[in-house]
């Protein structure tokens, strides 16, 4: 209570009330309520509107069961070390689920390796000057709509696209390579989509690192890699974890890039969710799939933070 009155004293009653209302609305109405209702729907049967609220509208684990076991009569069985059990296995959906998470992790790592040197360069160059132009160059492409950017990638990576034309012209290949079928375009697009969310948290963290510490380490004889290993990376750790978290979450939850850039036989887990909601008209099942994705991602992120000993508060810095 004292904290609340101090908050109002500091900000004035009008601004204080606005802040509390705005943040409350944002968290409660835009985040908590929709997620809770999705959680609720995920435990219900997919009923026609007339039956909603009737005695048949009861809670069930069917939707979650479906992700694990598939439709009744699914012939696939779980096998452990080659020994086939009697448990039915939804091999298709689970494979997509695991692949989505695995690829999202790889893309996050790739983005980290790509962005750390950039962020270091930006964070350690003097304010203004070339660094500012560089940041601007990074930001401007993001003024273009995400879907348009994905289509641009489709054009670049198409069989008659720039890359194939150049490779053919240089004589490196004798027929066009199908980047889209091989998912190269998808991974490139996903890797590019959230790059800024990796660069900026790391840049922010490194920017506040005292340059003298780097020089001190060098003066004490340290080669460049050890300076990064012992001084810069530990300092930038909250930024690195924050960037990885955001890139991983958004990549695992991406929809536009997989829809546009995915090869004909490739599915992203969000596309399955999307299908249940849209073409499948089964919101309950879509919700269950979405909840599983969300919870798994949160668990992975928390595990990452724990492994790297980063506290939640540090990420907010």
């Amino acid at each position: 209570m004292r904290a609340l009155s101090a908050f109002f004293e500091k900000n004035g009653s009008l601004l204080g009330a606005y802040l509390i209302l705005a943040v409350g609305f944002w968290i409660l109405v835009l985040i908590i309520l929709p997620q809770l209702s999705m959680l609720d729907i995920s435990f219900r049967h997919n009923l026609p509107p007339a039956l909603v609220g009737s005695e048949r509208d009861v809670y069930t684990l069917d939707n979650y069961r479906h992700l694990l076991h598939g439709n009744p009569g699914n012939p696939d069985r779980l096998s452990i070390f080659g020994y086939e059990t009697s448990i039915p296995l939804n091999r298709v959906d689970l494979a997509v689920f695991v692949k989505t998470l695995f690829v999202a992790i790889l893309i996050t790592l790739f983005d980290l390796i790509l962005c750390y040197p950039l962020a270091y360069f930006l964070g350690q160059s003097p304010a203004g000057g070339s660094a500012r132009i560089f940041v601007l160059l990074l930001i401007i492409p993001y003024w273009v709509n995400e879907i348009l950017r994905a289509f641009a990638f489709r054009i670049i990576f198409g069989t008659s696209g720039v890359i194939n034309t150049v490779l053919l012209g240089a004589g490196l290949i004798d027929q066009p390579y199908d980047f889209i079928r091989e998912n190269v375009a998808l991974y490139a697009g996903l890797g590019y989509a959230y790059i800024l969310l990796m660069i900026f948290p790391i840049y922010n963290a490194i920017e506040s690192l005292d340059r003298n510490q780097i020089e001190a380490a060098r003066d004490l004889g340290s080669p460049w890699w050890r300076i990064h290993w012992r001084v810069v990376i530990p300092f930038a750790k909250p930024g690195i974890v924050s960037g990885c978290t955001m890139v991983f979450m958004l990549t695992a939850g991406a929809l536009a890039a997989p829809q546009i850039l995915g090869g004909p036989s490739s599915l992203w887990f969000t596309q399955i969710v999307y299908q249940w909601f849209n073409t499948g008209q089964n919101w309950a099942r879509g919700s269950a799939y979405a909840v599983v994705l969300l919870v798994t991602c949160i668990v992975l992120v928390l595990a990452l933070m724990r492994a790297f000993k980063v506290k939640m508060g540090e990420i907010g810095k």
Partner: protein
Amino acid sequence: MTKGVGVQLDQLWIRFGDFVAVRDANVSIRGGEFFSFLGPSGCGKTTILRAVSGFLEPSQGRVLIGDKDMAGIGANKRPTALIFQNLALFPLMKVWENIAFALEVKGASSADRRRRADELLELIALKGQGDKLVSELSGGQRQRVAIARALCAEPDVLLLDEPLSALDLKLRQHMRTELRAIQRQVGITFIYITHDQGEALTMSDHVAVMREGVIDQVADGKTIYDDPATPFVASFVGENNVFRGKVKSVVDGHAIVATNRSGELRGRIAGSAKGTLAVGDDAMLFIRPEAFSIGADDQIDDHAIRAQIRHEEFEGQAYNVFLEGDAGKEIKMSLVNQGQSRTSAAGSNITLAFDPDQALVLPKGQMASEH
């Protein structure tokens, strides 16, 4: 004391674009001595330090450490260790890891590193504090950790960039003594950068006074203070009253200067101006506030000035008396507090007497700052 490694600056120039930060510096620093660069901020002293440590390549000229040209040798390969103004300790490492970082770089085992860190912790009187974080130490303790971290690299030359400037007065005075003691103990060459003349004079074997990229004088502290080579040194190191005028006569190492406002005054010709100062030259005569004493009211000669007391400050160890001579000439006198009461009331006229040997005559030149 072991024979330390000397450092030479040989016709060293450092330019940043059109700006000349260091102009033709020639200094020979003897092995094992405590050498200071003293000057106002922006005079180029830190630039020299960075050139010695290897963070900066000279535009021209050479830096030699132990007679070896350092051109092209990076900061991590030079036998120097730098203590930064803000210390730049690694905040995420424990105290002992900070200290032993140079050994970690060399690939020493954890046990060796710990042992060496503990030895150095003992040297800096912080025994048993190795497992703390840097943030848990006080300012003076961090200072000492920074010294230990640099010493752990076993440098031939330790470079210190105003490391005491962030400490409070008492601690600073204490650390001066301590730094000097550590330097004597380890016997390596210390190069110290400061704008604080007190630090430079108390600790150093030799001091180089710098002004706008130029080294005006290199000498021991006593010489710097008593026989400054230029008006800049005379006015930057300690306080000085300056009387401008023309040389009227030169006799026996003394000169009589016809000053603009205070009549003819006699002073000793500075060592740097001996033999070159001639009658008719524009000159400056410097008298330190503490060189004045109160003379007899009827003393009128070339080592006395009549002035009127304006106001007086009590500084503890001394009274600062501000006076006004003829034509508004401002003069400051400092009288050691020996228990006497105030000199006399504002407005009264007194005679300021001085020993001509304590007054210094230099050719006209640039002052540290014009008041």
